[in-house]
């Protein structure tokens, strides 16, 4: 990794951790917290997304799973840390079953199946009213302070980022890249492709479920729509794709961009926030198209500093 990239990464992560500790209340507290949560989701999404090329449209399934497991544990009388451990364990088991089932699917079918799983969980949480509070959602009392929530989320982001770097540089990361290039060829040289996929997806699922439980601990409320949210899944997908930078820098810069844009959209344009989010999606897709065309490439080169 180049020095400038490491420095830039340290500055971003450091700024987020310091802001998390400094701003815990008010509007800035919420903004920093959502930046960190989106960061965890985008970086964890990027682990299988980048190494295996798997596009999940239902990454928020794990987020919702973590939140609901934590919420149900709290309503059953557990305190914060036992509930945290229990919900991480339960989410890990749930994530393991889901990833084991979906790991065998090809790219397009995998995307569809993840979306299907997201909807199934959304509908289940609406139907199992006695456990989940139905469409209105689950309310829990405050278990830890907002400051502690922010700090825990910031450390989770650091851990996820470290996991991303370590995984991509490990033997399993190389196996993943080989699996993405050609699954048949990878199997022929003895790579256990199914295990590689499951491991990668599990590493991605656990931080997402922990992000969900921290989100509930801070906001005290989760509903089927906010927990198993398609918008959250799409935000993670966009953030990991929108900035064409290699490694972990791409999703982190993407999160800064997308969260800032979302913040403006959700607060300033009431009634048209979906449409504006749609415009961002269109813009992101068109940018990819422009990059691939010769005229577009020439245009981009003109604006790049120091490139002739």
């Amino acid at each position, binding site marked *: 990794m180049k020095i400038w990239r490491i420095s830039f990464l340290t500055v971003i992560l450091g700024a987020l951790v310091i802001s998390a500790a400094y701003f815990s209340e008010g509007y800035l507290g919420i903004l920093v917290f959502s930046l960190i949560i989106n960061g965890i989701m985008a970086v964890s999404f990027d682990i299988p997304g980048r190494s295996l090329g798997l596009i999940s449209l239902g990454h928020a399934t794990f987020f919702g799973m973590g939140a609901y497991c934590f919420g149900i544990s709290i309503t059953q009388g557990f305190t914060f840390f036992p509930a945290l451990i229990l919900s991480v364990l339960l989410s890990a088991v749930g994530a393991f079953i889901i990833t084991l089932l979906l790991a065998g699917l090809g790219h397009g079918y995998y995307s569809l199946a993840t979306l299907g799983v997201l909807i199934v969980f959304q509908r289940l949480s609406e139907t199992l009213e006695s456990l989940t509070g139905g469409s209105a959602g689950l309310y829990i009392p405050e278990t830890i302070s907002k400051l502690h929530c922010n700090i825990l989320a910031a450390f989770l982001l650091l851990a996820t980022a470290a996991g991303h770097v370590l995984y991509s540089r490990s033997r399993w990361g190389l196996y993943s890249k080989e699996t993405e290039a050609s699954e048949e060829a990878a199997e022929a040289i003895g790579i256990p492709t199914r295990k590689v996929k499951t491991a990668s997806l599990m590493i991605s699922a656990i931080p997402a479920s922990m992000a969900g439980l921290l989100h509930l601990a801070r906001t005290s409320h989760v509903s089927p729509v906010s927990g198993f949210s398609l918008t959250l899944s799409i935000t993670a997908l966009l953030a990991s794709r929108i900035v064409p930078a290699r490694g972990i820098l791409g999703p982190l810069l993407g999160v800064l961009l997308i969260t800032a844009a979302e913040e403006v959209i959700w607060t300033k344009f009431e009634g048209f926030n979906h449409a504006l989010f749609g415009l961002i999606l269109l813009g992101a897709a068109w940018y990819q198209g422009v990059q*691939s065309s010769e005229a577009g490439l020439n245009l981009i080169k003109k604006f790049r500093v120091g490139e002739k």
Partner: protein
Amino acid sequence: MLNSGRIFILTAFGLSDVKRRPSVIQVLISGLFLGGVYALLAVGLSLAFGIMGVLNLAHGSLAVLGAILYKKSLVLHPFSPWIFSVLATPIFLCLGFILHLIIVTPFRNLSLSEGVVASLIASLGVAFILEDLFVWWQGWEPISTYFSFPTFNLFNLKIPGLRAVLMGMAAITIGLSTLFLKKTDRGRSMRALSQDQETASLYGINPGITSMSALGLATIMAGLAGIFYSVLYPLGPRDGLDLTLKALFIVVAGGMGNLRGPAVAGLLLGLLESFAGFFFTYTSTDTIVYSLLIVYLVLKRGRRRQ
């Protein structure tokens, strides 16, 4: 014959209660009619994917647009759904052309997998934009249209005439599209393009115009499905993505790129939804349907590597 069919259905679902017999048959009929509309919706999506490799996530939103246009037209004149379908066809064809310029043309230089992801994101963007426009245009109230039509009796069974006609129209639309693909030059060009774009271009087929026509045809099907659906059930202005997802799963279950598979799978989904709603609660329908589809995907498609 009909009685043995009844007994088979009742035994299969463990029903021996005489009072419930007519209900089960009615549910079966209702499921078939709903399935006809799903089939129409899914066939359009399958056509777009088979020819252009585009998973158009705005497909369901176009169906909602069809429903809204029909509802608005009723203020001007009490059109029957079939007359309005014919009148709306050119509008949806033009919309399909415009959509092509937004979600297909900009990505023609990308590789196949990159192009699929880019068009998927772009079409999702279009779906979100349309959702807000629908809410702004007609408010949050469900889009429901009413058209009076007699019910007739067949072997002591009440057949809702309107649903039967709509199902017939859905079948005719699918049949005409199949004929168009098989018998016309433009249809043959579409099929050639779906098999090998480069070779098709060498034979003088214009990929741009051909794929634009395919998306136009797919959009017509989406619009008609929306008109028919709104006559049967109310549609919310933000139900587009739900409809798209159902259509996508039908296409996956029936096989991407062909028309017969999704048509059959659409009918099955209609039946499945009706029976799930009958035996369980209405709210559990989606859970059951999507769970079964995921199981199908895992069992069937997981074995076949792409």
